[in-house]
């Protein structure tokens, strides 16, 4: 195992969050992704050893959840919602355009390792459709052009900021650390809510 003492200590602190240590398997897998970008065999073996599970048991969990990747993904992992509503609202067109533009298919990565592409399911932002998620940050009300600009920016190392998120788009690994429950101190950035979230409130204030 080649996790550093510091990394190992973080894993132990993640384990200690829970009354029973097996519960920590999911944040630990996110943590492994924050280091390697995907679930490595080293990660599986380390988690198994720490949680006193078989490697098969850890594999069973890691392969169940779609956010855990068995192969490397891009520094910017682009998820385009093609569930019904977003697809109809333009997600299909966006996916096809971005896929053509990058010359990669679903679940593939650009050769420079910068951008990977995934069809994603509903991401709970339907009132912002069509939605694109990059490293699981919201990019609302996308168009074919805005999505192409987004991936171009990402490849150039200069992606635009998420619509509802931090001022600067973080990398896949950095955001994986947040999903492991490790704070990056960016909660205060970004708006409280986007326009559609405020629809009812606005109408109410207008006396409707």
């Amino acid at each position, binding site marked *: 195992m080649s996790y550093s003492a510091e990394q190992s200590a973080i894993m132990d602190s993640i384990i200690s969050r829970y009354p029973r240590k097996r519960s920590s398997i999911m944040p630990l897998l996110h943590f492994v992704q924050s280091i390697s970008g995907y679930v490595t*065999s080293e990660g599986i073996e380390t988690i198994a050893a720490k949680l006193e599970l*078989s*490697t*098969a*048991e850890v*594999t*069973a969990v890691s392969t*169940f959840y779609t956010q855990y990747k068995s192969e490397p993904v891009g520094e910017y992992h682009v998820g385009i919602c093609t569930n019904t509503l977003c697809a109809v609202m333009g997600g299909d067109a966006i996916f096809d355009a971005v896929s053509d533009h990058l010359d990669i298919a679903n679940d593939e990565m650009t050769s420079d390792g910068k951008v990977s592409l995934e069809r994603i399911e509903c991401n709970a932002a339907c009132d912002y459709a069509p939605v694109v998620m990059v490293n699981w940050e919201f990019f609302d009300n996308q168009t074919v052009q805005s999505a192409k600009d987004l991936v171009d920016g990402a490849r150039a190392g200069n992606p635009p900021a998420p619509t509802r998120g931090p001022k600067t788009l973080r990398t896949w690994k950095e955001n994986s650390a947040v999903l492991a429950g490790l704070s990056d101190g960016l909660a205060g950035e970004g708006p409280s809510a986007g326009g559609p979230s405020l629809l009812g409130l606005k109408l109410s204030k207008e006396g409707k």
Partner: protein
Amino acid sequence: MSTEITSDVEMITVVIDGFDVTVPKGTLVIRAAEKLGIQIPRFCDHPLLSPAGACRQCLVDIEINGRAFPKPQASCTIPVENGMIVKTQLTSEVADKAQKGIMELLLINHPLDCPVCDKGGECPLQNQAMSNGRESTRYEGVKRTYEKPTAISSQVLLDRERCVLCARCTRFSEEIAGDPFITLNERGALQQVGIYEKDPFLSYFSGNTVQICPVGALTGASYRFRSRPFDLVSTPSACEHCASGCAMRTDVRRGKTLRRLAGEDAEVNEEWNCDKGRWAFKYISSKERVASPMVRGADGELHEASWPEALAAAAAGLKGKRAGVLVGGRSTIEDSYAYAKFARVALGTNDIDFRARLHSDEEAAFLASIATRINVSYRDLDKADHVVLIDFEPEDESPIIFLRLYKQVRKRSLTITTIAPLASRGSEKLGATVLSDLSKVSGLTEKSVILVGERAAETMGRFTAVSTLAKSSGAKLAWVPRRAGEVGALIAGAIGNLLPGGRPVGDASARVDIQSAWGVESLPTKAGKATWEILEATTDGRINAVVVGGVDPLDVSAEALGQLLDTETFVLSLEISHSAITAIADVVLPVAAVSEKSGSFINWEGRPRFFEKAIADSLTRSDTRILSALADEMGTPINLPSAKAVAKELQAIGKWDGAAASAPDVSPISLPVPDAAHATLHSWRQLLDLGTLQAGEENLAGTARPAQVVISKSRAEALGVGEGDAVTVSTARGSITAPAHIGAIDDSAVWLPRNSNGSQCIANLGAASGLVVKVAKA
């Protein structure tokens, strides 16, 4: 927990398809229906596994007190309730359509490879598709395909296309064996059984998953494509490998054993067995089998001989000699009895011993003290409040005891203490408290069970201490030898201090019992020699003939073979296959393997495990029949033409009802304390190792646990050795080098597998336990 129906269990009456049935509370609907003879189709359901409700094949309509469930329910997950009315596919159109619908779905992705599938002809999917499915499929889509098959171990192959994802195998591995090395991976339509890529399915019990797989998804590498079920003749049998006493089924086609399966016996092995019992049977058809009697000629070579010639040569070689008899540990009770009688009647000696392994005089005394009191059972384990394992590793040495204990550990956190030098994997699974010192065991009651293994003979004073502990605590005590034949051999009197039925040799009235049963005027009165003494006596002529029935001399000592080889001792070997003994024997007589004869083993509980001849037309003779013929030839008949004749005699003789011999009284000796460069050697035989009866089964051998040197953390640090680094253990005789495993073992100790590939303690080091050995970084 006992499944016995006792009066305090509430009984519930339900109506199924119009018939009343009364069953204990908690019974699942699917099983209540079985009681009426109503077969509800099913795949994931298994009575010994936790309910899954996954396959949905067993859907039925249920109403309770007039309230109908809005949709059909899985009868494998619903316990009966008062006022319940169940309609199965026989009386409910909804249930029938639901079942046919599920069956159609199960088949859409199932390959139509039944003609080449091992399961074809005995396949629950095939059978139930016929009984509860549609006439034809409406599926016109693309079938899911996978690489077929993949090896999840050297002995189990997985064909994912055939899998119906019932999770029987994964539940078995986790719940029954405690080996969760196969799991359901991925999700949805791509969900599949799998292993972690680097860690194969190395479970001692993996074969059970093949047996309970309701389709042909899991197959045994050794049986794959070998036969059709309808070409096999099945015979109920018993396992010859260990003292657990599994019921088995042996499947034979045209005189050849093609597979063995776990038989059902709720009292013993339930429906499980270990992989050794299932797959280690190739020795029967080995090229090394002794094909005909052989007599060593003047040229010093063995030559094939006719039975009359060989028997005459054997009789001549034994006649008038001071002979000893060594009986192997896998002798049936009938054969052991024949050896016991042959020794006394034909050879006139008590010099007979079944202990073809490390043994002691203290042990013989202990065995004499318990020979008439073998009365602890699996049920006692089910009910025990505390089980103490002494020099006994159930997972390696009696795997069904392991399964039984593990079941109670999972169910009710049964307390287990083990007296062992280290925490084995089995002990870890059992959550056992590991103690090195027997005197630290406390808190035993009359509901506690002490299981002592044969390796207790390797520690002076251990059997004495065990006897004392049992007596003072009131706990039940059972001796669990490793091999299948030893308990029977003890009862049969194949040991120097006991006659059949546990009768002390030194007791005149005990001898009278046997004299009258055998119709002989006298019996030798002096207690016989132990195995080691017999071998030693051959070196100075005190013994000048030995009869050896299935003994590997290296199991006894490093010197044993040499002791026989270097002297003029006449050696008669009764063997299945050519061995170190046949190589030096003067006369070799081929004997039948278990599947070629009928007989019985007595398991550790004292329970007879009868088996019939599975290979009906085998002409190979049993040891009993040969010994009887030899005794005739010698003019001292023992009149045992068959196993049946033995059984009859044993029955008539019965158990000794006189005073049992007293327990041994031997004081422990203090062992030398090794310095830092040395350690005290500990070892035991792993379940899968270089044992003779495992010969020829490479697929099985591939799942054996590789040899490791277990050392403590501080020793590893002192040696500068990490996990997996090579370590050499050596004595004046030789050395063993194997990867280190840093484990919970005493700092002064080292552990090696006793007889595994790369680690044969007796052959390589000259000892198997207790010796001070040198430990160094390789």
